[in-house]
């Protein structure tokens, strides 16, 4: 095994552990936004794909990943990759479970599914599991979330919207 491969694995581990600044229970690996780590001569290049066009956390995440890599002893830079675009399908099963445990309902369906213009999505309450939920607003506290409420346990909750 070459040194470069070992370095890549160690660099991946360092970058992958960086938490999302808005939803700190999930890491950039859980969200699927850390796309690739490669070694370019003596520099580690981490490729990241933003979740939303205007996600204000993008810069913070890029800086945190670069800092984590430097902290692990690498010369590092971050490359922003826009294509192919991120989709909620890239959230790992572990990431979905962490979101649910944190009180955020994970995306309900595969992003490619055809939905009617004003069709309702079935979202299960992350606290009691009931499917009796209502949408409060398409937009939540961050670009990636919508607001819902559960009519069974009466708790409001965030839904990681499917895109």
């Amino acid at each position: 095994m070459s040194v470069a491969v070992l370095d890549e694995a160690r660099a991946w581990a360092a970058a992958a552990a960086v938490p999302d600044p808005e939803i700190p229970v999930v890491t950039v690996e859980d969200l699927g936004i850390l796309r690739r780590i490669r070694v370019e001569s003596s520099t580690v290049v981490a490729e990241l794909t933003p979740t939303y066009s205007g996600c204000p956390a993008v810069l913070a995440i890029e800086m945190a990943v670069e800092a984590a890599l430097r902290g692990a002893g690498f010369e590092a830079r971050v490359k922003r990759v826009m294509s192919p675009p991120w989709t909620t399908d890239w959230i790992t099963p572990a990431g979905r479970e962490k979101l649910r445990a944190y009180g955020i309902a994970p995306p309900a369906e595969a992003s490619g599914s055809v939905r009617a213009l004003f069709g309702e999505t079935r979202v299960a309450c992350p606290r009691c599991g009931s499917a009796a939920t209502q949408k409060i607003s398409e937009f939540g506290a961050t670009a990636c979330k919508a607001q819902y409420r559960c009519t069974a346990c009466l708790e409001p909750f965030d839904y990681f919207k499917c895109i």
Partner: protein
Amino acid sequence: MHEALLELADDHLILGHRLSEWCGHAPMLEEDLALPNMALDCIGSARTLYARAGELEGAGRDEDALAYRRGERAFRNCLLVERENGDFAQTMLRQLMFAAFMEPYWHAALGSTDEAVRGVAGKATKEMGYHIRHAGEWVIRLGDGAPESTLRMGRAVEELAPYADELFASSAAARAAEEAGVLPEREALRPAWEAVMSDVMGQAGLAWPDDVWPQTGGREGRHTEALGHLLAEMQSVHRAHPGAAW
């Protein structure tokens, strides 16, 4: 080619700035979150498009130079996006009109020959689908609502209908980009736009006026008075402190 991307970038920046003006002023908390969210989508797309336009232009202008250091006559956005916010009804109808055009536009742009355009398109077609739903629901709720909301949504239709036609007109620069397979053909999207609008108008109990006099000129830099005021505010910090960085 860069001029065609500038038109698109200007549309998104100006509309994004207009939406951001609602921050702290929306009629309810949920909308105070929704409107800046939609603004961020627009501004995010604009940033990538400006960066690509600057790269193609090759004159060393980055996204900040293009957004903050051009005057009113150099902006190429359509007139619809620079219209004042008016009341909430007018803002929602403007958003629906724009998103109902951009959603199929970006969908068609997924097959662009330019990688940066494909990158924006992949995100933006989904984001604009969201905007159609959000704005469309409000147009229906207000149009089919109480007498006051019906009156106001009717006024918004009268006010904004003349600005719809410009969405479908391609400038010479846009036509060149369309022929090169970089951008989709605008006129071809009219049926998709009309399908969404007539669906929403029907559910809202509103009628689209059929005798409007189309207002155009934005793609040639001939703007309404509203744009100059917007730019004066948006660009003031950058112009007062040229080259300032965080």
